């Protein structure tokens, strides 16, 4: 008979709680903290999952990235010698992968080197990437102005280049970069296109992306012809000369379901022709799966903490209500003598617990939705408050109120009215 004169029961509950303002406030505080933590937890979890999805979108869940790495023994042994270290992926590797693994639709080989790029007196230091015309399509990028490299550019080793917008801005702050020439090393390259800016989520771009630090794109053949296969880079005070045919390659697979099998095949193919471990295979999908697994554990831990704080709030409410029932034994006796049935007493006390927890829920939701905002603002984390998270938190808080209110209410209702009336 919850509907029994609902308005008056509600007002009576408010009145009784108001009589012990401090006590009620402190009790509600426990509930507020619980609800806040639930909302904050959900918002941070949701933000993390959004970041993960954003990274997945950036890397392309259907891509496999292979890249040359210096084999472990080379790192120490050849440092000071003037000998050229040769290692890494080769054109043959890329060719073999494209030819022998049927699920591979296209590969994007790339070479990279760090160099100064000049326009008259302006200079910027960035990565020059030699690549193929289908790079933007596989990388899910778009050209902002002009065009990307073409098959003819590659075939005729044209001295053309496409700039990332930040490089274009650095070299040509006051005019359009298109059609202008830039100098890389001792050669001039005509700018034929400027990329659209890479959209970065709050989680930042993944360093596994080929274009995360790239500034200038040139045809792969031009790169090999003019910048050479032997690259000299300065590292730790000495010059290191390395011969690498291909720095990175992206292996594109048409469907997500085929990615893992294809990765196995790619690894097998490379293993057969490389004696040293001078390459690595990065499967964004695998990484994301692993990250999601970690996130799930993380969510369970956070969820448990939030649940515990709600429980603590509930226990606080129960504690207070038990004290209140004892304190109001006489009132219960009077009400029973004057005709209150057990369920009236239950309704009365349950109303008070639900009011406490419901009020705690409302305030908790109001504070709770602002916490993620602060976390996002000052801790730089992505937080997303979904519409349902306040609803979930609020209903849990009311449920906690009902569950923890039942015992005190039962206790109040089961009192013998004669005993209760005699109570001082």
């Amino acid at each position, binding site marked *: 008979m919850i509907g029994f004169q609902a308005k008056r029961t509600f007002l009576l509950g408010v009145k009784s709680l108001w009589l012990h303002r401090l006590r009620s406030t402190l009790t509600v505080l426990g509930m507020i903290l619980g609800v806040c933590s639930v909302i904050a937890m959900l918002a941070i979890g949701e933000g993390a999952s959004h970041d993960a999805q954003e990274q997945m979108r950036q890397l392309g869940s259907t891509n496999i990235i292979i890249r040359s790495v210096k084999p472990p023994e080379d790192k120490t042994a050849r440092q000071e010698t003037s000998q050229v270290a040769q290692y890494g992926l080769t054109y043959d590797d890329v060719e073999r992968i494209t030819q022998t693994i049927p699920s591979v639709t296209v590969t994007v080989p790339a070479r990279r080197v760090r160099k100064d790029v000049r326009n008259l007196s302006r200079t910027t230091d960035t990565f020059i990437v030699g690549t193929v015309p289908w790079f933007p399509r596989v990388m899910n990028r778009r050209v902002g102005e002009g065009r990307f490299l073409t098959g003819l550019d590659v075939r005729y080793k044209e001295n053309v280049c496409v700039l990332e917008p930040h490089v274009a801005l650095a070299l040509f702050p006051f005019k359009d970069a298109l059609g202008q020439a830039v100098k890389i090393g001792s050669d001039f390259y005509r700018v034929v296109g400027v990329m659209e800016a890479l959209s970065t989520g709050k989680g930042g771009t993944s360093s596994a992306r080929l274009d995360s630090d790239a500034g200038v794109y040139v045809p792969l053949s031009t790169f090999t012809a003019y910048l050479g296969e032997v690259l000299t880079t300065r590292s730790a005070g000495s010059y290191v000369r390395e011969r690498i045919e291909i720095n990175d390659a992206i292996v594109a697979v048409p469907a997500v379901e085929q990615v893992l099998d294809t990765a196995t095949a790619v690894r097998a193919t490379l293993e057969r022709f490389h004696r040293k471990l001078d390459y690595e295979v990065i499967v964004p999908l695998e990484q994301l799966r692993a990250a999601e697994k970690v996130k799930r554990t993380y969510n369970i831990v956070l969820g448990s903490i939030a649940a515990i704080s709600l429980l603590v709030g509930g226990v606080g409410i129960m504690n207070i209500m038990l004290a209140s029932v004892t304190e109001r034994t006489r009132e219960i006796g*009077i009400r029973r*003598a*004057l*005709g209150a*049935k057990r369920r009236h007493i239950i309704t009365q006390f349950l109303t008070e617990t639900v009011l406490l927890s419901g009020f705690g829920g409302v305030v908790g939701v109001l504070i709770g939705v602002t916490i993620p905002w602060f976390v996002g603002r000052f801790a730089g984390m992505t937080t997303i408050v979904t519409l349902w998270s306040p609803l979930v938190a609020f209903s849990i808080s009311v449920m906690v109120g009902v569950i923890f209110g039942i015992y005190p209410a039962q206790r109040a209702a089961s009192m013998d009215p004669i005993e209760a009336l005699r109570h001082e």
Partner: protein
Amino acid sequence: MAAIVRLNDIWKTYRMGDTDVHALRGVSIEIQEGEYVAIMGASGSGKSTMLNILGCLDRPTQGEYFLGGQNVAHLSDDELSFIRSSKIGFIFQSYNLIQQLTVVENIEIPLYYQGWSERDSLKRATELAQLVGLSHRLDHRPNELSGGQQQRVAIARALSNDPLIMLADEPTGNLDSATGQEILRMLDRLQTEGKTIIVVTHDENVAKHSQRIIRLADGMAVDERRMRP
């Protein structure tokens, strides 16, 4: 005229460990509508037990209790609650008002549990407050009232559901004699208006106001004396 209260061989036995304590042993009495009855007896004679049974707060171990023709001796807890809210008016020695409620709200309690509408019960409670001379104190809390005023609120509350019987347990026990007299005169007046009143007391001066005294001793109604015809 049918008796409004008829107790028929009422026993109340408390089990204390291995022994049975008989608080009431075969009490049989009748009270007519409009009677004013005092129940007296030494401490431990069974007065409280009898009052609890008459007030439907407790059930006899054995025997029959007809209240207004209905046998209420063995009703369920909920049914007894309903009888209390609709047919019985309680007046206690220590008033038993609820502290956080106002005068009007206290008077309204039995009506609330009977499911009266807010408007009707407010109207009735206001009328009753006027009847007991507290119409200027409607929104006061019990602790702002004197003992006599509080007992008047309790009388108004006992009247609110227009009960078959009014049960008063030492109604003047906490009051000085002048105020006590005032309360007793109020009960007298209610009796002349046709109310049935049962008072439990050990005070002969209180008992004098009744028409009839039932004396309890060792759980038995031994003496039944009509004072005023």
